[in-house]
């Protein structure tokens, strides 16, 4: 057995500390009597703040110049392990990050203290258990993002589920139990299918390298036939599509959001939904590239339907929270569209939407929570003219609303613009030509030729237009998002202040400002300086696209993935720590 050392070389085990840091908080919480609510809250807040501070270290030491070796989809750094965990089964403890997970981890650590701080007045019952749930959730989320062993990933993935189930089911609104059960069953069905898929691939690893292994790299090296890939991709895709959620797997989401307490909604929308898109990108796409090509146009269509469908649904909601929930479906439609388009711009856009949506939708839920705490209602018709009684709140809320509406200069625009621009130039979403041949290859009972025939005149438009048409239909989202958000805004914030209860509402207190302002500032910063975030991502994305291009070439779809050489002058080639050291010299 190897000597037990978590860290590679002499560096600090950042990821282990980040993942299990919240557990220290849980231990501390257990020692505090449940009556001391303030102490419990403060401990949770300090824990999450501490984790956030530590997480800045991974930004600081992240070296963007690390690029995937040829034939590898990803290159990880700041790795902990691999250490045998359950050696007999080939399960290892192995963590690492790359440009794709870096910002998602930071998003999680950034949102957690804000979320915890926002619950100070929202939750009065079972504070201890509540805080423990939140911290468990954080461990699960970070763990899932940094795991490099698929089994380890699966453990964290399931670990997220239970605290969230409790948060909705115990601290939610009237129909909380129904919502929680639905949330749990939906995601469990997907997860179990994925588990079967994971095990299938696991049993193939043995032939290649002697012993079975759950390591991602080992699993990616397995050669699967096209038919195997089609089924396995389906299993993985279902699990992640439910989590995203992609139309038509979305009906659990609005219910869960409406019933969940504010903190639950913020985490659910801010981070947990991204686990779906992250999973697609990290696991489903690189493991089954040939199947992805076959599915891609259909995923694109589902994503576009989601954009329009979610937005139109949001428009007719009477409840602020379900409006925001449906808007998430719409926004994540853009994200998935960007991810499957396989062009540098679209991929960057998809990743950027994950971050931007986390901030802006998190902010929207926080704002709705602030209103709810004052009025104990989420019905749009109960409000009106709130701008008059809560001017500071109105200003902050407005920035978030316009960020979500994709106003250039705020964070929502960057991702959606890139995703749509990239989709329009995508070759991956083409139906005709080599792409269509995929469906005849599948043959047998699940040939999709009949569906191809149902599509009107794709051949006449030309294959390029398939992707462009998808981008344009998705782009109608810029109209819908203005419709539902501004209509909501008008009914809630504008108009006459004609209800007695609304007249006396107090504006934000210091605590509320302390957690709202960072969200607002982040929304602005991400809109004005997107390169700060895109820079460290780019080499990882480039490597991933090169890998996918090579895989597609092998599968006979040469040129379907667009790979571009970025200008050298904008991607940082060293970590901020390195740069600082150099400057000091």
């Amino acid at each position, binding site marked *: 057995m190897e000597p037990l050392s978590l860290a590679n070389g002499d560096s600090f085990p950042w990821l282990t500390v980040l993942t299990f840091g919240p557990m220290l908080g849980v231990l501390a919480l257990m020692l505090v009597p449940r009556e001391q609510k303030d102490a419990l809250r403060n401990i949770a807040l300090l824990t999450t703040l501490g984790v956030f501070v530590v997480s800045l270290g991974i930004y600081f030491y992240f070296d963007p110049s690390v690029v995937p070796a040829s034939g590898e989809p990803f290159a990880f750094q700041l790795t902990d392990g691999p250490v045998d965990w359950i050696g007999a089964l080939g399960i290892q403890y192995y963590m690492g990050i790359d440009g794709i997970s870096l910002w998602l981890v930071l998003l999680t650590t950034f949102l957690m203290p804000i979320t915890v701080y926002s619950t100070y007045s929202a939750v009065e019952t079972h504070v201890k258990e509540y805080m423990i749930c939140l911290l468990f959730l954080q461990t699960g989320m970070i763990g899932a993002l940094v795991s490099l062993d698929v089994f380890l990933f699966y453990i964290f993935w399931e670990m997220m589920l239970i605290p969230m189930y409790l948060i909705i089911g115990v601290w939610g609104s009237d129909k909380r139990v129904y919502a929680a059960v639905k949330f749990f*069953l*939906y995601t469990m069905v997907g997860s179990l299918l994925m588990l079967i898929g994971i095990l299938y691939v696991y049993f193939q690893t043995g032939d290649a390298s002697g012993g079975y292994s759950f390591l991602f790299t080992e699993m990616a090296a397995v050669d699967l036939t096209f038919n195997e890939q089609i089924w396995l991709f389906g299993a993985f895709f279902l699990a992640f599509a439910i989590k995203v959620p992609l139309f038509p797997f979305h*009906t659990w989401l609005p219910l869960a959001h409406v019933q969940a307490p504010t903190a639950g909604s913020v985490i659910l929308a801010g981070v947990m939904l991204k686990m779906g898109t992250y999973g697609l990108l990290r696991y489903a796409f690189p493991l089954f590239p040939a199947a992805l090509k076959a599915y891609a146009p259909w995923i694109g269509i589902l994503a576009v339907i989601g954009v329009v469908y979610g937005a*139109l*649904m949001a*428009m*007719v909601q009477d409840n602020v929270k379900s409006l925001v929930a449906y808007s998430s479906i719409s926004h994540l439609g853009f994200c998935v569209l960007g991810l499957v388009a396989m*062009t*540098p*711009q679209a*991929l*960057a*856009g998809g990743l950027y939407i994950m971050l931007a949506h986390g901030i802006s939708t998190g902010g929207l839920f926080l704002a709705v929570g602030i209103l709810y705490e004052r009025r104990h209602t989420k019905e749009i018709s109960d409000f009106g*003219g709130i*701008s*008059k009684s809560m001017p500071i709140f109105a*200003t902050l809320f407005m920035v978030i609303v*316009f960020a979500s509406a994709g*106003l*250039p*200069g705020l964070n929502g*625009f*960057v991702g959606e*613009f*890139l995703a*749509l*621009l*990239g989709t*329009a*130039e995508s070759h991956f979403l083409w139906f005709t030509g080599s792409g269509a041949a995929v469906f005849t290859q599948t043959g047998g009972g699940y040939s999709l030729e009949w569906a191809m025939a149902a599509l009107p005149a794709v051949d006449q438009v030309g294959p*390029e237009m398939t992707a*462009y048409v998808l*981008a*344009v239909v998705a*782009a109608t989202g*810029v*109209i*819908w998002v*203005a419709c539902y958000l*501004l*209509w909501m805004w*008008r009914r809630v*914030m*504008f*108009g*006459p*202040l004609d209800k007695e209860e609304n007249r006396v509402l107090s504006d934000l207190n210091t605590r509320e400002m302390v957690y709202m302002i960072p969200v607002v500032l982040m929304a602005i910063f991400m809109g004005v*300086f*997107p*390169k700060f975030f*895109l*820079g460290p991502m*780019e080499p990882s*994305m*480039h490597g991933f696209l090169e890998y996918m291009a090579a895989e597609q070439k092998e599968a006979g779809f040469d040129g379907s993935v667009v790979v*571009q*050489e*970025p*200008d050298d002058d*904008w991607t940082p080639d060293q970590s901020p720590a390195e740069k600082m050291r150099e400057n000091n010299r």
Partner: protein
Amino acid sequence: MESQFTYLGLIVLFPLLGAIINGVVGSRLNRKLVGWIGSGSILLAFFYSLASTLYLYNHGHDSEYGDLTYTAFQWIYAGDLGLDIAFLMDPLTSVMVLVITGVGFLIHVYSIGYMEDDPGTWRYFAYLNLFCFAMLMLVLGKNMLVTFIGWEGVGLCSYLLIGFWYEDDANAVAGQKAFIVNRVGDFAFLAGLFLLYYQTGTFDYVALEQMASTPAGIATMAPVALPAALLIFVGCTGKSAQIPLYTWLPDAMAGPTPVSALIHAATMVTAGVFLISRTHFLFTIDPAIGLTVATVGTLTAFFAATIAVVQDDIKKVLAYSTISQLGYMFMAVGVGAFTAGIFHLMTHAFFKALLFLGSGSVIHAMGGDQNIQNMGGLRKWMPVTALTFLAACLAISGFPLLSGFFSKDLILWSALSNAHVLSIPGLFDGTIPAAALTVEQAQPLASGGPVDVTATSAAFHWFFYIGGLLTAGLTAFYMFRLYFLTFEGECRADEETKAHLHEAPMSMTVPLSVLGILSVIGGWIGWPHFVPKGWLGSGHKGGHGADHAADAGWTIQDVMLGFEHWLDEVFVVSDTFRIVGRFGAHPYSAEMICTAASVLVGLSGIAAAWWVYLKNPGLPKEIADSVEGLYNLLDNAYWVDELYDSLFVQGAIKVGSFFHAFDKIVIDGVVVDGLGWLAEQAGRILSYLQSGDVQRYATYIVVAIVLIVLTILTI
């Protein structure tokens, strides 16, 4: 690295700083101070705009393209896409920034007086400064995305300012409508951008223009030129309130009046005209694009003018008038007369801002009443307002030697005389050598080469001209209807209102007077070409990069044709081999007839208004009664709003409701609950199997073993 001209950054920075200061601490400052911070930031921007323009005039030709640039920072980068926050100043931009900061400053000063009693002054000035910031981004952008930031930013500020008094739901509705209608346009704009980028791989104006001036580049652009340009044009119809997306502008009058003057008359609504001029090389590639633009412009100009004739709300008249005048500008850029379009944009900014500010002064005095039927004879109480208003009315009506006369005349003349080169043989298939498209060799083409001007095209141009001429008559009529009903005749206000009538304070009358002077003399830099050569000195220059910097001092001619010469170099790609004059090189007599016709039509309009509204005050009622159907049609603006509402707004809500039901019944009800039901049934069947009966279990085992053996044997 290109040289950095820092002033361009400062021009946009000052308004942004003003907005931040007023937005963050404004609520705690004295209202006057807030106003002066707001105005001061625009004044600084104006100084830097002026300085930049002078620098461009003196040194512009030192660099290759004669443009000043400034790159602030790197913005969106992904793959080989690189978008910077970068600014570009060429003669076209210089006109725009001077109008925005100059007129903008006057309107800010005016607002100090106008918004004196409003508790939200700080919010108002923060929004107004933010607007100027966004508008300056729009015109200074070096690539289409910076323009797009400004494009959406001005939409946001417009939304905020229309709904400034949001407690009245009608204002909030108007703001929302403006934003959403504009978003429809923005959607098309984005779709056009994607198409353009797909073919060209760049958003940079300079790179695109270079591409559009080589055969290889044109061949690259050609497949998408028509759809991309038309999509971008749809975006322009949203921002500039043209058919079919104009319906938001009349409602936008719900905002404070200075806002209407700045945003909904002088600057933001002209963004579409600016954008088409900025991307003129794209819009002239295919003649169908220009004809579409000009047709939409002509129709908008005419129909908006007919609606304006019957409106009684002083601001509604001006709103429809703005739509109509913007139609003229689109007519101009559609027929390739970009200089004329921008010229009218500038003079219109002067006189229309003045009209709005004047109407604000009237509304202020009338205690908020906007109905012109309740006014009359106000000149007695408000001499400065009345006089400046009259100057603006004369200017917009095309009264000789006032600003609007020159610009409108130029548009009408260009509409008649310009023609697109329909086809240059071999242009797109690459058989024509690259050298054939240099400016020198294309010249003979422009002056009588194989120009294919078909009868259809000529018919289009006659249609534009006659439509424009009719609109000119209508314009003179409704503007003087407005003037006579407001300032002349008997005062129809009640006694209480009369007692409160007063002239506006200095902070309002001074901007009025300055704009009044500009409305009179603003056109004197663009005289018609037929004006005798003796006036001009030694004949006019050929333009096209004429070396004016080299001349020591200005001649009278430089001033009289100054505007044209200043902008010439911007549109050189389109002017040299895509737009030609149908009447030969120097058709002075035709031009003169054209001018005479427009003067005559304008004066007739004024005379008719005088006859109907001053001489025979009973007549309007009689006419309205005699053509009641038509009157109602115009009064309700052709019921377009109602049509759009039932079609699109209710339609979208219906679809949304349908989806909602679909979600509940089909996806959740049938599929999800159906799966749940299946699982339950499966559980029942399985539980039936597990009966606890040992003999039955034994049977299962035997059956299973037999099946397994059979399976193995068959394989």
